[in-house]
Structure formats: structure tokens, C-alpha cells
């Protein structure tokens, strides 16, 4: 037996301990996610967008997105990397600024609809078969029966003038899928022994739901939040294109809306760059979301 250095001696137990950390669902998921190349590329791109959005928010760049001093429809150049639009605005700055708009909408809608979906889904699942479940299912059924964009447009139209009309419209419809998934999971979980045990020792029902059951649905919520995030960004673009979305500011949807007339005149910069930015973020988020879904799928993780 040869002597080992203190470094190696320390390293050995760590190497052995690493698989032990991955025993938990989360540990395995993080490991699996980190091994998913496409997922990591997606995450990297999303982080770049996030840095751009934070930079805009902090005022580091794209501060002159509203200036109109440039020439009409200037071509791409060192001064205007993506050219200018009909009123001489710098398309590069507007595309960057729109990243912040996308993240704002995505985050607000994803967080709120996930919270609402989690709460109502958990309540419906735990009290399945009771009037509480009936009412929540009825509300979900009603909302799901209305064509999505028609409903979002109607809410946004009814609340026009309210800067958060679009957010309200999306949150009020996006929570239903999350709610349905959480409900199913909670119905499964509520028959587990740990829940039976909690009931047996007299833990109040709401504590059981929110402290013991809901944390076990986080893997669903996380995946669902990423899906909603992407859906919110896409919906924002469509609503802004229709004039029902962003009111004060700029977004890729507004840029595409502006481009409808410009394209006919032979100027494509607004359309192309807004589409490229949108495509990049949506694609990256989808790649990340798919990887996350694979990583958090208990069946796949078990393998």
C-alpha cells in the first residue's frame, strides 16, 4: 500500500460521496440536466438574453431605443447595425430593449399563472370529488372551452387602457394547464403514506396541502413555468402585433407589426431582426424546457 497525499485522501471520499448526492430526485435531475448538451446550450442562450434584459433594465444599453433622429429606413451600418425604421429609430436598440419586455412578460405571467395553477390545482386535487373540486374544474372547463387567442384578445380589449391588460389576460388562461397537472399529481400524492401519517397525527388539512404535498409537485411546476414563459412571450408578440399587447415601450411583436408596411416597401430589417431575436429566445427556452422535462421526469430519472 502506497501512501496517499492529503489532497488525494480528501478527494477519495468526495468522489465516493458524489453519487450519494445524486440519490435524490433533484440531485439526479441536476446531474442529468448538466449532461444534456442541447439543454445546456439552450440554457446558455437564455442566460445571454437574461443578461441583455438585465442590462437594459439597469440602463447599461438600449437607452436610446425611442430616439427618432436617424434617417428613414437607413440600411445596416456601423452606426445602425440593424438599420432604422420608418421614423429613424435604431432597430438594434429596439431589438435589445424588446428582450427586457419579453422577460418582463414571461416572468410575470409564468410566476403568477404557476402560483395560481399550483394553489387551485392542489386544492382541487386534495378535495377531489367535493364541491371545491367541482367549482375549480368548472372554472377551468369554461376557460379552456374558449379559443385561447379569442379570449386573450377579448380580455385585453375589455381592459384596454390598462397597461397590464395583456398580463391579466394571459395569467387568467395559462394557469389552467398547470392546475390540471398539479391536481392529478396531488390526487396521487394524497394517498401516500406520509400524507396518511400527517392526517393521523392531526396535521391541519391546509398545512398538509401546502407544506407536505405541494413541495412534491415542484418538478411539475418548474417544467410548466418554463413552458408558460415561452407561451407568454409568443402570445405577447401576437397580441402586440394585433395592437392589444404592449402599450408603452417596444416589443418584437410591435416591431413585426411595424414591418408589415415596411416589407411592402422593400425594407425587411424590422421584420428580420425582431423574428431572429424572438426565434432565438423561444428556441433556446424550448431546448432548455425539454431538457428540464427529461431531467425531472421521475420515470427517466429512475433509470
Amino acid at each position, binding site marked *: 500500500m502506497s501512501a496517499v497525499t492529503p489532497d488525494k485522501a480528501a478527494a477519495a471520499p468526495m468522489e465516493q460521496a458524489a453519487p450519494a448526492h445524486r440519490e435524490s430526485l433533484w440531485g439526479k435531475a441536476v446531474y442529468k440536466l448538466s449532461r444534456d448538451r442541447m439543454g445546456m446550450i439552450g440554457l446558455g442562450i437564455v442566460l445571454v438574453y437574461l443578461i441583455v434584459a438585465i442590462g437594459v433594465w439597469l440602463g447599461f444599453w438600449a437607452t436610446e431605443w425611442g430616439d427618432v433622429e436617424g434617417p428613414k429606413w437607413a440600411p445596416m451600418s456601423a452606426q445602425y447595425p440593424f438599420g432604422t425604421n420608418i421614423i429613424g429609430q435604431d432597430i438594434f436598440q429596439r431589438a435589445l430593449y424588446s428582450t427586457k419586455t419579453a422577460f418582463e412578460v414571461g416572468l410575470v405571467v409564468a410566476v403568477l399563472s404557476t402560483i395560481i395553477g399550483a394553489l387551485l390545482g392542489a386544492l382541487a386535487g386534495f378535495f377531489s370529488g367535493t364541491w371545491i373540486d367541482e367549482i375549480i374544474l368548472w372554472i377551468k372547463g369554461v376557460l379552456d372551452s374558449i379559443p385561447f387567442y379569442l379570449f386573450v384578445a377579448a380580455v385585453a380589449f375589455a381592459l384596454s*387602457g390598462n397597461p397590464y391588460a395583456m398580463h391579466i389576460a394571459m395569467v387568467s388562461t395559462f394557469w389552467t394547464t398547470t392546475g390540471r397537472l398539479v391536481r392529478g399529481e396531488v390526487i396521487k400524492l394524497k394517498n401516500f403514506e406520509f400524507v396518511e401519517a400527517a392526517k393521523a397525527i392531526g396535521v391541519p388539512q391546509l398545512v398538509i396541502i401546502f407544506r407536505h404535498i405541494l413541495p412534491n409537485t415542484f418538478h411539475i411546476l418548474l417544467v410548466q413555468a418554463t413552458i408558460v414563459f415561452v407561451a407568454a412571450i409568443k402570445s405577447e408578440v401576437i397580441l402586440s402585433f394585433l395592437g392589444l399587447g404592449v402599450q408603452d415601450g417596444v416589443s418584437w411583436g410591435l416591431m413585426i407589426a411595424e414591418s408589415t408596411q415596411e416589407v*411592402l416597401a422593400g425594407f425587411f430589417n424590422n421584420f428580420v431582426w425582431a423574428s431572429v431575436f424572438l426565434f432565438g429566445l423561444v428556441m433556446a427556452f424550448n431546448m432548455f424546457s425539454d431538457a428540464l422535462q427529461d431531467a425531472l421526469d421521475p420515470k427517466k430519472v429512475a433509470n
Partner: protein
Amino acid sequence: MRKLAWSLVVIVAVAVAGCAQEQKSNGYDPSLKVYRHAMDQAPSSIDPVQASNVYANHVVLNAYDTLYAFKYLARPYEVKPNLAVDFPEISEDLLTYRIKIKEGVHFIDDPAFPGGVGREVVAEDFVYSIKRHFDPKMRGQGAWLWQGRIVDLDEWKARGADYDDPVEGLRAADRYTIEIRLNKPYPQLTFTLTMGYAALVPREAVEKYGLEMSSRPVGSGPFKVVSYDTSKIVFRKNEKFRQEPVDIWYEGYNPETQGFSGVEAIQGRSPPFLDILEIDFIAESAARWNSFTKDNEVQYTGVPNEQVDNILLSKHPVTLKPEYAEKYFMYAGVEAGFVFQAFNLDFPEFGYNEDPERARRNKLLRCAVIKGFDWAKRNESFYSDIGVVFPGIIPPAVPEYDPDLPRWSVERDVDEARQLLAEGGWNADNLPELVYGTTSSVTSRQFFEQFRGWMKKIGYPSEKVKIKQFATFGDISKAWKNSTLPFVAKGWGLDFPDAENTLQLFYGPNGSPGSNDANYRNPEYDRLYEETSVMLPSPERTALYQTMNKMVIDDCVAITGLSRTRIMLWHKDVIAIPDREIVGGFFLKYVDVDRTGKADAGGSGT
């Protein structure tokens, strides 16, 4: 197998030939003369009492008759008798008008009449039609034209709007003579009788169809409506329309500027010349353009802004590129109207303020905003750099326009704007929030963004220039009428070629909910307006108009203005000058279609 292949070839050939025939004839019987016109909006009603916009007016003037009309080709615009035999006989005190109408004119055949046969149009029809505007049940929108003007008419409304109750100042002196008595002289009265609002409607039809009149015209105009919906209206020639041969020289024909169009071909013939007139309502400019350039759909279009650079060889003067000139006729002209922005002076942050010092500072603020506004750039961005920028509120389309007016108010000067703000003690912290109302269209939003960008340049913080979006034009109009917006951005189309029609936009008593959205109240301006409102056209009246115009400029009430240059294109087989400014829908009865293929080889006019 070989037989089968040949059979298929024959079937396909026959089908293709059938389609081609169908396309060539626009879906109508090829023996008919058909003209397909295009407009950018559909009228919401085609009842004359609701003909409040250019689209409704276009349709109404073709289904109904008016006493007067604008000459087809005369520029500047001139009025001529239409259903009236001649111009009105006006008493010396200018208070009584007697108008004789043509005998033997009939309404179209309709079940509303006994036996379904249209009866003769009589003076009483005019009396009835004007009364309708004052009947609350009709929800008419044209009463403002005659409110307070005609003796006893407002009182008639107050008495309950009973049609059998006579109005002292509006009556049929005999079967064919109308008598109008005024409270005070109203030189623009004849102009108002050219408008769709003043079209003659038979009482029988209104009583039979009620609200259905909004989509079922029963008139005596050159055409009768076959079908009408939100996508198009189809007219058929009114075979009973009176025979009146056209004298193009009387109509103001100018061979130098209009000869290219071939309108000489209608000389001496009685309109209407078309068997079918179809007006397609196509809101999307790209769709309208595509329909026009397909060559087998609409035969007329206004040129969308985004196509101007593609089709024009030069802008000053406006000329087409050869490939377009070869295929289409063109006419370019300055619109009879203008676009402008105005402050709502009812807002003490920008307008009238009890504190004289604040009122002084507010004026400096308004002047600074005006100096920060870049009309040249606005013209370049949205009007292809061919609009006419002018100071004040008297646009180029009216005879009282003064091209030599100083241009201080339409020339951007950022330094001067900043200086004015400083003079008023304004800085980024104390400048008031400016709410800019727009509709949710892309162009409206870009107007706002451009405005905000210019304001930023003079030191108005962007976060203080806010947008407030309205879903429809109706919604924002309501906000203007209710005086809930501090800033008004709008356009105004002239009803008739007289500066009175724009000066009334700043007349104090017309304040919200009237047409004075700026709520400008200048006693001297109002006094002059009242003085000129009873004057006939004269150099003295023009001088007073100019004084009023200067008041609006000096008080920094409005950022004004620009008249757009309209470019119209139409197919070579259409014989027309389809200029809708002022003349409105009257021109459609003079449109003819050349089916011989001998149309002029090229040309355009302005």
C-alpha cells in the same frame, strides 16, 4: 389510356378558359359595363341622416339626389345645380332662399310606394329630409349644419318633432319650390345642400323601413343599390334617372391637365354610363394594392404610402415610373383638408389657468412644443415627402389660403424650443405629464413615438409624454368630445371649399362636445367669426379670416398643419377623373368604361 389523357386535357382546357372568362368579366355578364371602385373603409350606415364620413357620403350621393353638387372637373371646386333648376333666389337681406327643383324626377321603384312605382320627387321631400336631422328618433348627425340657422327648426324639435307640424322657416312654397328662411345670413347654406346629409328621402320609405334605411336606400340618384355589406356595395344603373347630357366644358374640363383621361368621350351623353358600379371596401392597404394590380379586380386605388417610392419616378412633380404609366392613369392632388394636433386648453396644465403667470408660462410651453415638432420629418416619414406643410388652419385647398404666411410655426428649431421652455421656467422636473391619445393602429403609435422623440430632444422627459390607446376611432373621438385628453391629434376633411369650415374648429361656442376640441376661447376670434359668418366671399372677409388664422398661430394653440397629397391610380379602360376631394361621390356617375381597348396610351394629371 390515351383517350383518358386527352379527355383530361380537354376538361382542364375548358375549365381554364371558363375561369379566364370569369376573371375578365369580373363575375358579371360580359355585356355589362362594370366599374369596380375601392374605398378603404365601409360606411356603417347609408342613410343620409347618418352620412357623417366620406365613405357614407360617397355611397349616399350615388343612391340619392341633392339639390346642388360640385362640378365634376372644375378646380378650384365650384358648385352647380343638381336637382335644383338653378342657384337659389336669395332675398336682399340674405335671409330668404327660394329654390326650384326639377319636375319629372322620380324615386326608384320600391314597395314603399303605392303599386311599387317610384313617385315624383317634390319640394316637400326636401323639407321632410331636413326635418329628419332634428328628429331625435332618427339619431341624425347632420343637424349641426342648420342648427340655429333656420327659423323655427330648433323649436320644431323642442315641440316634439312632429312631421305634420310645419316649420316656419322651412317649407314647400309649391310642389316644386322650396323656401328657406334664416335667422341670420348663412353664406355657406348652398354648400351644405351639396352634402349627403341634405339628400332627399321619401317619407313613405322611412315609414315603411324605419331603421332599415341604414342599409336600404330609396332615392332618386343615378344608381340603385343591389346589395350592401361590410365588404362591398353593388349598384345598378337607375334606368329612370333624368336625362341630362354632360357639357364637360361647363363641368370645368381642362384639356391640359385632364385630357389624358379621355373624359372628352362623355361629352353630350347622359350619365350614368355604367350598368354596374361596385365599391369594394378594403381596409388593408396591401390587400387593396394587390387587388388593384391583379388587373381583374378593383380598377381604382389610392396609392398606399409604402408604395409611393416604388411607383414614382419623381415626387416634384409627381410622375409615374414608365412601367406603371404604361398600365395605369394617375392623378395627384392636394387633399381638401389637413392633419394637425392641438392642445386642449381646458387643461390648466397647458391651457387656460386662473393664475395669469401660469397662463403665460403655459403659452411658452405650448410654443416650445410647436417649435420642437418637425413637420418636414413627419412629411418625409408618413406622407412620402409630397404633403404640403403650411402654417395655421387655412389649408391650401380653400381660396382664402395665404402661401406667404410666415413659417415660424412649422419650422423646427430645437434651440429656440429649449429657450422658450427656459423662459417659462420649465425644466424636466416641473413639466406637466402630456397624455397623447391614439388608436391602436401601428401608424398612430408611430406618430406618438415620433412626437415623444422630438419632445425628448427639447428636454421633455420621455416618461412624461405618455400614450393612451383607444381601441377604435370612435372611442378616441368620444374622448375628444368629452374633453378628457389634453392633446388632440386628428385630421379634418373639408365639407366645402370655404375657410369657414376650418375656422369653426376654433370657435369658442363650438367647444367640447362640439368640433372645437382645443376648447380655444378667444373673444376677439369669436367676434370675428360671427362677423364673417354672415359675409359673402369678398376680400374683406378673406382679410378677417387671415386675422383669425394669425390669432390661432400666435396663441400657440395647435401644431398645424399638413395637407396630404393624394395619388390615385386607375386602369386604362376606365374613363374618369376619380378625385373624391370635395366632389365626393358625385364623380361616379360620370365614370365610363372603354371596352374597345382604345384608351389613351399613357398620362397623368395633377
